[in-house]
Structure formats: structure tokens, C-alpha cells
């Protein structure tokens, strides 16, 4: 705990603008609940923070002064987005040894949460390399069904996600790691898998239609 009480830092790993990403919505829910428990908070959007020397320095300083760090990110090519890895490289160079708890929340566009497994292992290795204490990860599938809206406004579909995050918040407030039950609830499909893939495939066609490229969606522009 620092002199001003406990402080939680949310690192948003999505490159999207504030208010637009599932990663932010998931992380913001936790932050709000921690603030209700009188924790102070700070939110940093990683892609934006890396654009200047000041931003990079502020990122490292924020990590240094936090009591709990939550990294919320989308899965990119089985791993973390490049800017998140860059931020991790910077943080690991600074290396902290105060045992700050580090938690990861991953969301992917595949129906199965298990796709996030490698990324979670990377987060755990990062914590180890940076002198942070790995306090567990929550992995979510079907991220494509969610939006950047506040979780409470996303309907019954997110009930298990909210339950999972509530359990996690209870644990964080007591300086405990992510409970197994929270991990289990977070990984539960939010809709049936067949429905997700069917709706997803329809959605891609619909979006392509909006841009007038429905018939080009299978194009191979770089075919040799």
C-alpha cells in the first residue's frame, strides 16, 4: 500500500480508441468496483502511451506506484498485441521488486477461451521477469459478441462475466489471486458455439456488404 491508500492500475491493451474496446469494458468494470472499495485508480491506454517519451515514462512510473496492475487485452495472432509486448519490454527493463500483484484479462474472437492460453503463459513469464507477482488470469472467448459499452449495458449474455469479475474483485480487495471459480465462469461460452460462428460468418458478410465488397471478401490480392 502506498501513502495515499491502495492504488489499482488498468493497462488497456487494445489499440482501439477509448470507449471502443471490449478490453476496456472488462477492465473498467473491475476498476469501478475497486474504486467503490476506496482504491484509487489510473487507466493507461498502452498504444497511446507509447507514442511519446513522456508517455513511456508515465507508463513505467504508474507501474512502479501501483499496488495492483490489471492488463486487459485482445488476443492477436495467439499472443498479445505488439504495443503490449513493447510496453512489457519497457517495464521489464525497469524491473520492480515490490511484489505488486499483476493480473491479466484476455479476450479473443474465437468461441473457445482456451485460445488465450499461450498469451496467459506469456503474461505469467512477464510478471516473473519484471519482479511483479502473478495473481492469475481471466480468459474469455466469443469476444466478438461483446462491445465497448459498459458491461452492465450488454444484457444477460454477460452475466457469467460479471459474476467472474465480481469474484475477482473480492479476491483483489483481500490481496488474493484470481479465484478458480472466476476463471471457470469467465471461460464459459456466453452463447452456444454454433450460434456464435453462424452469426459471426453472417456478420462478416454484412460488414463487407456495407463497404461494397461482399463479392470480393475471398479475394487473394497477393496471389503469385
Amino acid at each position, binding site marked *: 500500500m502506498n501513502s495515499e491508500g491502495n492504488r489499482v492500475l488498468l493497462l488497456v491493451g487494445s489499440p482501439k480508441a477509448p470507449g471502443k474496446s471490449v478490453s476496456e469494458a472488462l477492465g473498467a468494470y473491475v476498476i469501478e468496483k475497486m474504486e467503490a472499495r476506496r482504491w484509487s485508480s489510473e487507466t493507461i491506454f498502452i*498504444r497511446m502511451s507509447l507514442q511519446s517519451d513522456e508517455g513511456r515514462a508515465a507508463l513505467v512510473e504508474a507501474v512502479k506506484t501501483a499496488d495492483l496492475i490489471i492488463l486487459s487485452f485482445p488476443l492477436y495472432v495467439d499472443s*498479445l498485441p*505488439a504495443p503490449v509486448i513493447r510496453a512489457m*519490454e519497457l517495464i521489464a527493463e525497469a524491473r520492480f521488486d515490490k511484489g505488486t500483484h499483476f493480473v491479466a484479462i484476455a479476450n479473443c474472437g474465437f468461441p473457445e477461451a482456451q485460445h488465450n492460453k499461450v498469451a496467459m*503463459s*506469456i503474461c505469467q513469464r512477464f510478471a516473473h521477469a519484471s519482479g511483479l507477482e502473478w495473481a492469475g488470469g481471466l480468459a474469455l472467448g466469443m469476444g466478438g459478441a461483446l462491445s465497448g459499452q459498459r458491461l452492465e449495458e450488454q444484457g444477460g449474455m454477460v452475466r457469467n462475466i460479471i459474476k467472474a469479475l465480481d469474484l475477482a474483485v473480492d479476491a483483489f480487495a483481500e490481496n488474493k489471486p484470481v479465484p478458480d471459480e472466476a476463471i471457470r465462469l469467465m471461460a464459459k461460452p456466453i452463447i452456444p458455439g454454433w450460434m456464435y460462428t453462424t452469426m459471426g460468418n453472417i456478420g462478416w458478410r454484412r460488414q463487407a456488404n456495407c463497404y461494397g465488397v461482399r463479392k470480393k*471478401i475471398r479475394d487473394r490480392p*497477393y496471389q503469385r
Partner: protein
Amino acid sequence: MKALVLNGVGKDSRHLDRIEEVAVRELRSLQWEVEALILRDIEIAPCMGCFGCWVQTPGVCLIDDAAREVTRKMVGSDLVVYVTPITFGGYSSELKKALDRSIGLISPFFTRINGEVHHKKRYARAPNLLGVGIVHEPDEESARIFKTLIGRNAINMHNPAHAAWVVNEDQSETEIHELMHTALGELGVRS
């Protein structure tokens, strides 16, 4: 046969370039046509997660920078080699900035592979994939994560064959050469 080597070594670790150079020499000695890209010298913006490469300009990223050319070269290769310092078990940010921008290589549509959902192919054929991970000192857990990551990428990007090997940064050129030779044998692309 064409090989594309993506060097993800960062500017503070240039001494690791020698591992990429051994890989290139080994491939050339086997009569491969090799192009090596040093990614730290190439300006590539981060992927914005917009899916424009799937639904707006199919197969081409909306951001007009060097990543488009990297992706084009990947399609035109028989083998893509990732050379990277193993970074917390995964790729360096320098390598990852290019890979994040390459998802236009696959289709947005879902399919099932080994009971798991993935995306369909866009191109009829994808290159084979070889991951070369560099560690400062032996680290079994990082090596395990790296090999798993290469395997997962190979499923998602439809690489027909893949191999991953881990080298210590102070290994001799002869040892690296032998490892490379073995890895290419695993891929069945030694000539």
C-alpha cells in the same frame, strides 16, 4: 524455393543478428533464394484491430505502410523464418508488429480444425514456418511457450509444416548451423 526471414531482433540486441545471418547462409547454401528483413529498420504501425483487411479491402491492410509488402512477401514464399529473442516466452515486439498486420492472409470465416474453431484459408497455399527463438540463458519454460506459440500460429495461419528451435545467444556458429540443418530436415525443406 524462396525463403523470407523476418529478423525481430531489437536495436539494443544487434549482436543477435549473427543468428539470423547463420540461418540465411544455411538456406543459401541449400540453393534457396533468401530475403531477410530487419524489422527494427522498417516503420510498421500497430494493427488497429479494425478488421478492414477482412471486410473493407479484403486481404490488404487499410494502413498503407511497409507491412503490406511484408505480407505480400509472405504469400510469395515457400518458407517464412521468424528470428526473435524469446520475449517472456513469445515474440519480440519488433517481430510481432509485422505479424499482427498479417491477418489479411487468412479469411474472416470460421472453420473447425481438430475440434477447435479457427479461420479459413484465404490463399490455397501458405509457406512453411520455422521459428528461431534466441535465449540469453537456458530457460525451459520460455522455450516450451515459444514452441507452443509457433505451433498455434501454424494452425491459425495454415502453414503446412512448422518447426521451432531455441538457441542460446552464445552458441557457436557450428552449433547454430547444425540446429538449423536439423530444423530444415524436420520441415522436409532441406533442398
